[in-house]
């Protein structure tokens, strides 16, 4: 009897400790190291595990990349952003990383950690002091590569150009040309050309008329100037003769 009593209490304590359940958040080891072309998107599955005996609520904290001058940081999206993991269970969080094309260049290394913290199912944010949250983190290392053209996109562009050209040829040959060569269209074109020729002729005649008028005006002006010059010359000659001496004038008169 004396032996069994301590044994009983030992078993009781074992029962009590065995009933203390715990939840612990873990993850599969290994960083995400990705060579990414500028403008591309990469997807990775991030495994989170609950190694404990009770359900574990978690939430994801997206990474913050240290800014680099003249470069645009990658964007990271995780699905789901929070959830509950059953005991001894692994869940996968899909991590989608996009390296923007704009304002980016090759040869840059981006390094950060996407974290997942465990939260009690009845978690409430505390106040005052430093509130500590612990969890696991997956390092994301991105090495930017030169941009590449997506083959599918290139094929779509080429196909679009070919289709556009084919449609253009079809329209020209089967819609435009027949209409263009029809009797009515030809008659319309001939009429239009006639009108254009008429208009041209009218403008030429107008131009000639105005130039003729100009020339006539100039000729009249020249004629006027010539007659004025003649009159002026005659008047000068008679004045000169009036100034000669009376003797000479008499001589001139006798001779007459």
């Amino acid at each position: 009897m004396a032996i069994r009593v301590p044994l009983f209490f030992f078993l009781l304590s074992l029962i009590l400790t065995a009933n203390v359940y715990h939840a612990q958040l873990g993850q599969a080891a290994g960083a995400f190291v990705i060579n990414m072309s500028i403008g591309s998107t990469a997807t990775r599955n991030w495994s989170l595990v609950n190694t404990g005996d009770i359900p574990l609520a978690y939430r994801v904290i997206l990474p913050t990349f240290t800014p680099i001058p003249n470069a645009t940081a990658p964007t990271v999206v995780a699905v789901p952003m929070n959830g509950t993991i059953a005991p001894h269970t692994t869940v996968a969080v899909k991590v989608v990383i996009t390296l923007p094309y704009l304002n980016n260049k090759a040869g840059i290394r981006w390094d950060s950690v996407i974290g997942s913290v465990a939260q009690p199912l009845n978690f409430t944010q505390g106040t005052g002091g430093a509130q500590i949250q612990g969890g696991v983190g997956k390092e994301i290392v991105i090495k930017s590569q030169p941009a590449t053209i997506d083959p599918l996109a290139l094929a779509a562009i080429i196909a679009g150009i070919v289709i556009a050209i084919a449609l253009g040829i079809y329209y020209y040959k089967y819609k435009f040309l027949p209409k263009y060569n029809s009797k009515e269209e030809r008659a319309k074109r001939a009429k239009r050309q006639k009108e254009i020729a008429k208009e041209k002729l009218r403008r030429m005649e107008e131009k000639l008329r105005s130039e003729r008028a100009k020339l006539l005006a100039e000729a009249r002006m020249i004629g006027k100037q010539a007659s004025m010059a003649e009159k002026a010359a005659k008047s000068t000659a008679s004045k000169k003769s009036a100034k000669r001496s009376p003797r000479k004038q008499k001589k001139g008169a006798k001779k007459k």
Partner: protein
Amino acid sequence: MNNRAVIVNLGIIALMAAMVLSVVSFTFSGISLSANSGSTNVVATVNVQSTCVLAVSNSAINFFTVNPGTSTGVGASGNVVSDTNNGNVGSYIWISGSNWIGVNIAVNFFVANTIYSNSFNNEGAGYLFNSVGLATGNTGELVSTGATNTLYFGVNIPNGQTANSYTQNVVINNVC
């Protein structure tokens, strides 16, 4: 010892064995079975996934009342966080935080005023001493499998900081 006592003791021992077995648990993935031709042997291969698991010791650090222009030093008043790695691979401690926000949210001060070290009351050269940042950073502290590492925290209060009750969030991640 009579027969009844023997039976009771055997029952107790069986119960103890059952309880010990129920507490033991392990995580595994990928079991493959193969049979050697010409024999009745079956080979089972278990792939154990490499994992790191974090447990932190507390959920909040209370720095109590601190005067402007002074520092608490690292680890004072028991301001410590223990990080236990229950996984099967070592992991590094990465840390980030938010700015200190007062009850009146227009009053705050920067996260870098929170400092930590891997040694009590020791700052500067020779120790993993640094400031907490907004972007998560590697402390350089390696937590081995099954080990517990301790970080000692402190806070510097800027000169002239308005009296208030301030709160910040600190996130500690084991990265492996």
